[in-house]
């Protein structure tokens, strides 16, 4: 099923199924086999997190389960899952944690999202998939090989985050998947699935915090006016918003209590924040940042504010008014000119007509006399 995840997906559950066509390495299968029983072994009440460690190309069955640390997570990112660096060791690094989502539901382990991407037909550029996560979830990333390539011999499948290889790849017939628990900022990043065989396919998953939607054009206001800067977070509600203004190269947080009559921060909707700057001066011109804090990290949006003086639009205004006045004057002058010409022409015509009538009269008298004569 082709993955169709975008920012419009429900914030919590981003379904991403990666079906990787894993080339079943000789060592891969035992590792796969090793992964599943460990699943079964790890049973905890609330949730189970398992961080599959990266498997090196040399297959070694990782069957040991270790409980490294056990933390209760009360709505803030405080735990750290060890992954990555430990994965370089050929040991299964399992971390179990208890999750408590900051929503009311306590069934965090049920918020399980799957993301799947079908590998591209040809070994062209890597397919990129962006996933937006605003809170901690467990996800499964799968890369899948298209059915028509099932005959291809798969030599090796690697899952990597950065330079670190991830072990514990779940393999099904044509797909290879990893399961991740994203609980803090360090877990976000790019996860790479590479399938090597006769051809090499690659898929990259970018796990990110939600982006902030801001107007990319500068906001234009005038001195003495009120400026309203709006930041919107699409589909996800951040925990808090912070506004910064740039002073030189520093970013100063706009504290509401600082200048109460100058800055007003409104929360119109849960995912929309508004900064109102009153009594604008040219010093307020510059770059402003709105920062949204999510469970998994922070996201910033940049806004540019321009403060103009009233002289700026006044110039085009006066130019257009001048053009109107000139055109109206030209039209009226042309009308007076053409009327005068018409009058002259009429007087001439009248003169001609009187002349004509006079001549006709005299002619008519002659004609009638000739008629008389003829008769």
């Amino acid at each position: 099923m082709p993955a169709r995840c975008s920012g419009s997906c429900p914030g919590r559950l981003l379904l991403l199924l990666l079906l990787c066509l894993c080339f079943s390495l000789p060592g891969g299968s035992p590792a796969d086999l090793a992964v599943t029983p460990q699943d079964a072994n790890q049973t905890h009440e609330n949730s189970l997190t398992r961080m599959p460690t990266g498997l090196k190309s040399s297959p070694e069955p990782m069957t040991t389960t270790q409980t490294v640390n056990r933390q209760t997570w009360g709505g803030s990112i405080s735990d750290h899952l060890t992954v990555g660096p430990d994965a370089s060791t050929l040991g299964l690094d399992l971390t179990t944690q208890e999750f408590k989502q900051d929503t009311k539901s306590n069934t965090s382990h049920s918020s399980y999202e799957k993301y799947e991407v079908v590998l591209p037909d040809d070994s062209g550029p890597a397919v990129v998939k962006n996933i937006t996560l605003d809170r901690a979830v467990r996800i499964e990333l799968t890369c899948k090989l298209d059915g028509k390539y099932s005959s291809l011999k798969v030599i090796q499948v690697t899952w990597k985050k950065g330079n670190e290889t991830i072990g514990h790849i779940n393999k099904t017939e044509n797909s290879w998947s990893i399961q991740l628990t994203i609980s803090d900022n360090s877990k976000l990043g790019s996860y790479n699935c590479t399938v090597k065989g006769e051809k090499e396919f690659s898929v990259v998953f970018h796990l990110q915090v939600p982006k902030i939607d801001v107007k990319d054009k500068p906001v234009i206001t005038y001195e003495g006016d009120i400026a309203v800067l709006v930041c919107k977070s699409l589909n996800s509600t951040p925990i808090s918003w912070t506004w910064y203004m740039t002073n030189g190269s520093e970013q100063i947080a706009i504290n509401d209590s600082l200048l109460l009559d100058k800055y007003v921060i409104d929360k119109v909707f849960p995912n929309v924040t508004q900064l109102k700057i009153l009594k604008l001066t040219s010093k307020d011109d510059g770059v402003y940042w709105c920062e949204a804090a999510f469970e998994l990290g922070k996201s910033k949006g940049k806004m540019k504010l321009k403060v103009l003086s009233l002289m700026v639009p006044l110039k085009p205004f006066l130019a257009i008014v001048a053009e109107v006045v000139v055109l109206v004057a030209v039209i009226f002058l042309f009308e007076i000119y053409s009327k005068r010409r018409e009058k002259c022409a009429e007087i001439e015509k009248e003169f001609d007509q009187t002349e004509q009538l006079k001549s006709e009269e005299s002619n008519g008298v002659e004609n009638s006399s000739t008629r008389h004569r003829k008769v």
Partner: protein
Amino acid sequence: MSPPLPSDLGYIPPDGGWGWAVVFGASISVGFAYTFPKAFTIYFKELQAVYSISYSQIAWITSIMCATTYGGGPISSILVNRYGSRPVVIFGGLLCGIGMVSAAFCTSILQLYICVGFITGFGLALNLQPSVIIIGKYFLKRRPIANGLAMAGSPVMLCTLAPLNQFLFDNFGWRGSFLILGAILLNCCVAGALFRPIGAPKIQSNEEVKEVLKEEVTKDAMEMNSSTNIPVETKPEEEEAKDCCEKINKYLDFSLFKHRGFLIYLIGNVLMFLGFFAPIVFLAPYAKHIGIDEYSAAFLLSVLAIVDMVARPATGIIANSKWVRPRIQYFFSFSIAFNGACHLLCPLASGYKGLVIYSVFFGLAFGMVCAMLFETLMDLVGATRFTSAVGLVTIAECCTILLGPPIGGTLIDTFGDYKYMFIKCGAVMVLAGTFLFIMNYYNYRMLAKEKRKAKEEDPKSVRTESEGRNNLNKDTVQDGPELEPLREEQERLKKEVNGTNEV
């Protein structure tokens, strides 16, 4: 044979020459009047944020503007009847400019309602009606073409105003844009300057020339003038017969409500406007609803505007042809029904291609109806009474124009489906078209009957009736296809002049 034309103006319109400059000015005025409310909507988001108000509150601005533009029709008509088109349009342009410039300094939404809604809306009303009226004064034989070209100003202005507004907003913010828009609206004064007054005084001057001639030739020149000089003759008559009603009728002709053609037009159009504007308002949202992306949805409206731009002058040319002009009311009814049929078929359009085809046909039908909107009214009531007729018609249409989109919106919200809105609009327009078709068939027959009756009587009395026709004696003889009194009058004058020579 040239179609018989109603010519009760008291003079022969030039049908060209300076008339084309007037058409150009009229297209500018009409364009601003119709498109300014539509193009204004891009400021809504920013204004909503600045004043912290909801969308429905900000949408009141354009509603007030439209209501004032249409509702100010009668006032516009009265002013034109009294002062002529030119001063009214120039004043209207100034009012628009003042309205927008003061809106640039507004600090509350109420002030915006007044400045943008009332003042600018009223200024646009003072632009719209006189522009349409003066076309009837300058054109007779080519009036449909002139009307089509003048109404074509609306889509052209829409295509220029919308991107211009966006450009102004990006560079100057909303306050600066309002200031500059105020200056742009002052260009309506330029259009108004083009509206050179034309009318009966021209015959006065001709008559004066002839007076001079006859004085030179004969001594009973004064008698001739008193019988041929229409305005001089009717003025004493007017003074004698003037009473309260007629005084009012001089400013706003309420006797039009006894005019059969006018009533048919009024009822048909009021019905039509219930379903006229709603599909345009909801086309883009409907496209987005069935899954088309925002830019393609906006492109549909562009297609509509471009087809509209071409359709209006083309309809004017077709309506001017000798086959269509005598039966222009049928053509108008057909175009309304065609418009309705488009809407009825729209729900069957599936996917983007279907909607593009619908947009093309809708643009064509919309252009056809708009081009003939005022031409048919002129055809029914004649150019002199058109001044009052257009004011009365616009204020009656005002209610249904404003009701149309909200009713459509309610239908969409209730049923959750756009097709009921299209069906309602299509049904209403097909009904209006059919009504107009049948009633105009009846009207044409009655007019032909009256004409035959009038011709059976003394031909001279018919001539004097048509000569002495002004705003007062309209009840007995209806306008419509009839004689060409001016040409006959000129021939008669010639004969008289020649006759005096023979004496």
